[in-house]
Each structure stands twice: as C-alpha cells, then as structure tokens.
C-alpha cells in the first residue's frame, strides 16, 4: 500500500512537471508569435497549439493538485465536527469522485476513438486532436487513483479513531 502510494505520488509529480512545462511553452510561443506578428510573420496555428498546451497544463496537474489538497472545498461545517465524522464523509465523497473520474477516463477514450475514426484534425495545421483527449483520459485515471488512495486512507482513519 505504502509502495503504491509512493508510485502514484511520483507519477503525479512527473505529470505536474509536464503541465508546468506546457505553461512555460505556452508563454514563450505566444510571445514569439506576438513579436513575429509585428514583422508580419506570425507562427501558423499558434491559436490551436496554445489551446492544446492549455489542455495539457490543466489535465496533467489534476492529480498533483488533488494530492496537494489544492481543489476548493467548503470547510465551514466539517472543521467543527469530530475527526471520525470527517473521515466518514471523506470516504464517501472520495469514493464517489474516484468512480466518477474512472468513468470520465472511459468516456474520454470513447470520444478519442470517435475522433480517430472520423479523422478529426485542427483547422490550420492539421494536427490530430485525439492525443490530447487521450491525455485528459489518462489524467482522469491518475486523479481517480489519487482519490481511491484518499478513500483508503480515510477508511483507516475512520477505523483507528
């Protein structure tokens, strides 16, 4: 269990580095495009590439943000309840969320398959869009694993209290 936790954390961390790199490239690419536009030589497809980089930046940081407890929650009620009650609710919602993102990963694969079949590409530089949908799918899967982990940890906390 502890080993599994370490592996999931390490992967989430690596994924977040990819996301961070995507943000940096997004900034540089856009600035270069703006500058080159002054000389009437814009980079074709910047619009599309930046959108795709955005998809990478957000989806690849999902698991890490969840590990860091970075997603917005409402603490008002829970922080005043006993730890055991808190753990109980955490078990429920993390399990529900984990199943949901597992499902989301699956529907995204389905969607990616449709895109492959129809041969969908971006409008200017004809870049296929399905790899990014698959990226979102893998990220959802990883998030789901993080949430299952949260669920197990809270079960243990609930029992130990």
């Amino acid at each position, binding site marked *: 269990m502890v080993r599994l936790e370490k592996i999931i954390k390490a992967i989430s961390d690596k994924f977040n580095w990819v996301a961070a790199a995507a943000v940096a490239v*997004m900034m540089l690419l856009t600035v270069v495009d703006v500058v080159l536009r002054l000389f009437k030589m814009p980079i074709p497809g910047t619009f599309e590439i*930046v959108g*795709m980089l955005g998809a990478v930046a957000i989806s690849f940081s999902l698991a890490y943000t969840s590990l860091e407890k970075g997603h917005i929650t409402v603490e008002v009620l829970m922080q005043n309840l006993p730890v055991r009650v808190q753990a109980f609710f955490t078990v429920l919602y993390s399990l529900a969320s984990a199943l949901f993102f597992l499902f989301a990963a699956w529907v995204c694969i389905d969607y990616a398959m449709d895109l492959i079949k129809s041969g969908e590409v971006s409008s200017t530089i004809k870049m296929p869009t399905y790899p990014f949908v698959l990226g979102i799918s893998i990220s959802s899967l990883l998030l789901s694993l993080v949430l299952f982990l949260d669920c197990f940890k809270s079960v243990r906390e609930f029992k130990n209290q």
Partner: protein
Amino acid sequence: MSPTTIGIIGLVALVVLIFTRMPIGFLMAIVGFIGFASIVNVDAASTLLAKDLVAVFGSYNLTVIPLFVLMGQIAFHTGISRRLFDTAYKFIGHWPGGLAIATVGACAGFAAICGSTNATAATMGSTCLPEMKRYNYDPGLACGVVASAGSLGILIPPSVIFIVYGILTEQSIGKLFMAGVIPGIMLATLFVLTILIWVRLKPELAPRGPKTSFKEKLQSLSGTGETLLLFVLVMGGLFTGMFTPTEAGAVGAFGALTIALVRRTITWKAFLQSLMETTRISCMIMMIVGGATVFGHFLAVSRIPFDIANSILGLDLPHAVIMIMIVAIYIVGGCFLDSLALIMLTIPIFYPVVVQLGYDPLWFGVIIVMVTQIGVITPPVGVNVYVVHGVARDVPMYAIFRGAFPFLVALVIGTLLLIPFPQIALFLPGLIK
C-alpha cells in the same frame, strides 16, 4: 419527474453536499452529470461530459487563466512590491496614517499586475507589515489594511474573477478589465478616506513615519517605472485590440520575468516554483470552471434558471430593490463560501435575471467582483484575512477581521454607489467600440 423537479433536487443536493468538504468542481460535475442523465439519458450525458471536459481544458480562451496567474506569481519574485511600497512610503509616510495609506497605494499598484486577491494580500503583507510594525502601528489596523486593500487585486485589471465571469457570460474580457479601472481607483480612494477618518479619531493607532527629502522622493520613483510600463504594455495592448487576453497574459508574464531577470531578483528555483504554483492554482480554477460547465448544461435542460428569472421578474419590485437583494445574497453567501465557487454556482441563475432587468452585463461583472472583495474579508470564511494571518502569525484572526471592518464599510458604500451611478464602471468600456 419533470425536468424542473429534477433541477430543484440537483440544486438542493449540490448545496447540501458542498458541506461534506467535497471539492466543489468535482461535486458540480457529478451532480450535473447525474442530473443531465436523469433528464435526457445516460448516453447523452456521457457524450456531454467528455465534450465539456475537452472543450474547457483545451479552450484557447481559457489559457488566459494560467498566463495571468503566472504573471502574478513571477511578479511576486520581482521585488516590485517592495519598490512600490517604498515609493508610496517616501511620498506620504510622514502623514498621520501615512504608512497605511502607502500600503493602499502599493496594493493598488501591485493589483495592476496581479489578478488575485490572496496573491496581492500575501505579497503586500510580507512587504508592508514589517514596516508598519516598526513604526508601532496597531497590528489590527495594519493587517486589516493589507487584507482589504489586497482585495483590489481582482478589481484593478488583470483579474481572475473578471476572466472567469467573462467566460461564463461570454462578455469581452478586455472591456471587463476596463470597467474595473475607475471603480478600483474609487475604492482605493475610499480606503484612504477610511484611514484618514480612523486616525483622526484615534491618532495613537498609526504614528507618523519619518520625513523624506524631495530628492529621496524623486529617486524612489525610478523603482516603479517598470510596473507602470508593464501595465501600460499589457492593458494597452489588450484595450486597443492588439492582443487577445491570452496574448496579454503571455506578454505580461514574460515582461515580469524579464524585469526579474534584469534586476536579478529571481532564481531558477523560484521560477520553477512559480510554474508549479501556477499549475496548481490554474488547475483549481479550471476544475471549477469544468464542473460548472457540466452543471450549467444540466441547469439549462432543467429550465430552472428560466423559471427563477421569471418568478423574480414576476415579483414586480423596483429593479434597484431586486439588485440590492442579489447583492445581499452574495454578501451573505460570501461569508461562508469560497468566492469563486459562489460565483460559479450563482451566475447561471442570477445572470439571466440581471440582464432581463436591463442592467449592463459589464456593470454586473464589476458588482460581482466588489461583492467578492467583501467576501474575502468577512468572517468566518475570509480568505484574505487567513492569508494575512499566515504572514503575521502573532496577530489573532479576530483582530484582523476587526481591523478590516472599517474598510468593509467602505466597500459596501462603494458597491452601493455603483447601483445609482453605473457610469463609474461603464464610462471607460463605453469609449471603445
């Protein structure tokens, strides 16, 4: 069950489950998915879920969020905050309450390159609080000023809240940014007046700082030129239509990075840290946007927003009264909920009402931002107060809430002023076609 009934069940479920501490973005997506599936069918809901996630995460327009967040994160490392405060301090530090007024000025300046309330409060807190402490300022007043003036981060452009509002309501982000400028200046002025009145009543709270020579004043100006330049470049490009909002964000982040590199105030490690923080904050915002998109589609098929709009309009009350009621709901909601979540939850419902009442969408955006500012300094959930408490551990939370109270009054007055005088917000955006 009728779609309306399912819609109501969904809304109630959302409001109840939010208190289980479930991440709000997840919750909205799940409730929205289940609701949509029960009204239409599971297949349609699955397709909707995949398409919404891909459309939100891969949207070019939304990349403006990570880029402006990055700009604020890098700005933190440029030392701009210290130089802004230094200038304001040299000019007015010797007035009664001068350091507090200088803090307001520096916050307003930093807000011009940073788009979030808590980043502004954290940055200015670590800069201004030690100085005010050194001159024996009352800790409650000092922390209250930073928490309140830090909230200018989202009113003076750039602003994450304006961006999110603009995306949700399909309004021009550039025009929204412009709409925030005059209210931002007005509010900063109201904060200064608040300080002046407060120290007139209790001069011992805020002793005078040292006098500075004219030469020192002039010299300090050199430290703020770059901030002004960056603001003019980013906002000017955006307002004249030369940049898209995303491009403005990228140029702003790159500009801040350049300043930091030239001044040698950023290390490689700090740059990487800024990137990591940026992905975390952007992911948090975008997850809520994604969840709200799915939830919004569910609400749309349930026809709830339409029904609520009709019943509110059927009340036959004067428009200003309805508007004040909406503002009151936001103020109360903002006490308990995170502001971004509150906006996401309520915009699909209130926005159609406000537009049907004949109010300007840009003006409502400014109102939303100002009630959010109120939300970040009202107990029990006041993010800016938490942030300032994080910087000044020795000042108890209640003292900061109390110190922020006079500014809260100023904020409420400012917000209410906007109802009879919408031109305060609409004058600047009205200048561009």
